[in-house]
């Protein structure tokens, strides 16, 4: 059993690995539940001991993996404040935003075994909430697409170099159209507090989706 401290170089990496693996499952599940992609590309799998739907489409899977691969260095350094999965209508206006807020509290030391089993149990609750969130959300208009936004603690331009880890997968500062949503309805899904990471998930839903 290894003991990790916040000062360990390894520690940030372990937390980032856990979070990115979780975000991958969560993004796949959001795309399935909100019907952004045809249900035929999804397959039932088991993650965190609960059934989830994961895409089998190689291009989409690569896109999600590349996105998370770029975000990981920011999570390692605790530089990412919010990761937002935005669902957009045909006109590229956001209709729903799944906001994952995260912060890493200061910590003295923790055993790596406790860390894994405990945090995975907590993450399961997020997955369960995502899988039933369609009950509280209105249907999305047809032809929706998605994007991911990363809100950093410091100005985005200062983190541009850190996120640019894949040459063919460039990042830019998002424009107002992708970010802004008029009078969103806020739907809290889950808040968790653990020794290594605090995370909160809520959905912002556009009042009039059909426009």
């Amino acid at each position: 059993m290894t003991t990790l401290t916040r000062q360990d170089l390894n520690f940030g990496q372990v937390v980032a690995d856990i979070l990115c693996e979780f975000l991958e499952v969560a993004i796949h599940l959001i795309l399935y539940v909100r019907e952004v992609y045809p249900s035929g590309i999804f397959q039932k799998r088991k993650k965190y001991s609960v059934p989830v739907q994961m895409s089998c489409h190689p291009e989409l899977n690569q896109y999600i993996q590349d996105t998370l691969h770029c975000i990981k260095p920011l999570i390692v350094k605790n530089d990412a404040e919010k990761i937002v999965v935005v669902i957009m209508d045909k006109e590229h206006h956001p209709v729903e935003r799944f906001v994952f807020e995260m912060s890493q509290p200061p910590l003295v030391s923790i055993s790596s075994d406790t860390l894994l089993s405990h945090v995975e149990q907590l993450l399961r609750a997020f997955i369960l909430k995502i899988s039933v969130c369609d009950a509280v959300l209105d249907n999305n208009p047809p032809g929706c697409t998605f994007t991911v936004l990363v809100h950093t603690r410091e100005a985005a331009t200062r983190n541009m170099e850190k996120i640019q880890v894949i040459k063919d997968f460039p990042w830019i500062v998002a424009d107002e159209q992708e970010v802004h949503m008029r009078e969103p309805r806020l739907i809290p899904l889950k808040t968790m507090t653990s020794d290594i990471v605090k995370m909160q998930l809520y959905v912002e839903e556009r009042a009039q989706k059909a426009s």
Partner: protein
Amino acid sequence: MDVLLHYRRQNNLPQLLEIAEKAIEKFPTRPLPRFKPWFPHSDSKPPLTPTTIPPVISPNEVA
């Protein structure tokens, strides 16, 4: 207060009474936390996003 306990015949009644008594006892509750976003939206800090757009998959492609 009268209590009517519905139970299955094969269960042990004295033990059930004990469990049921515990279940209806009052217990200390914590005040409900109010949900609040930790990092409210700020126009001065725009987020980062990939320039590449995700693939479009038509239902015909799957079938």
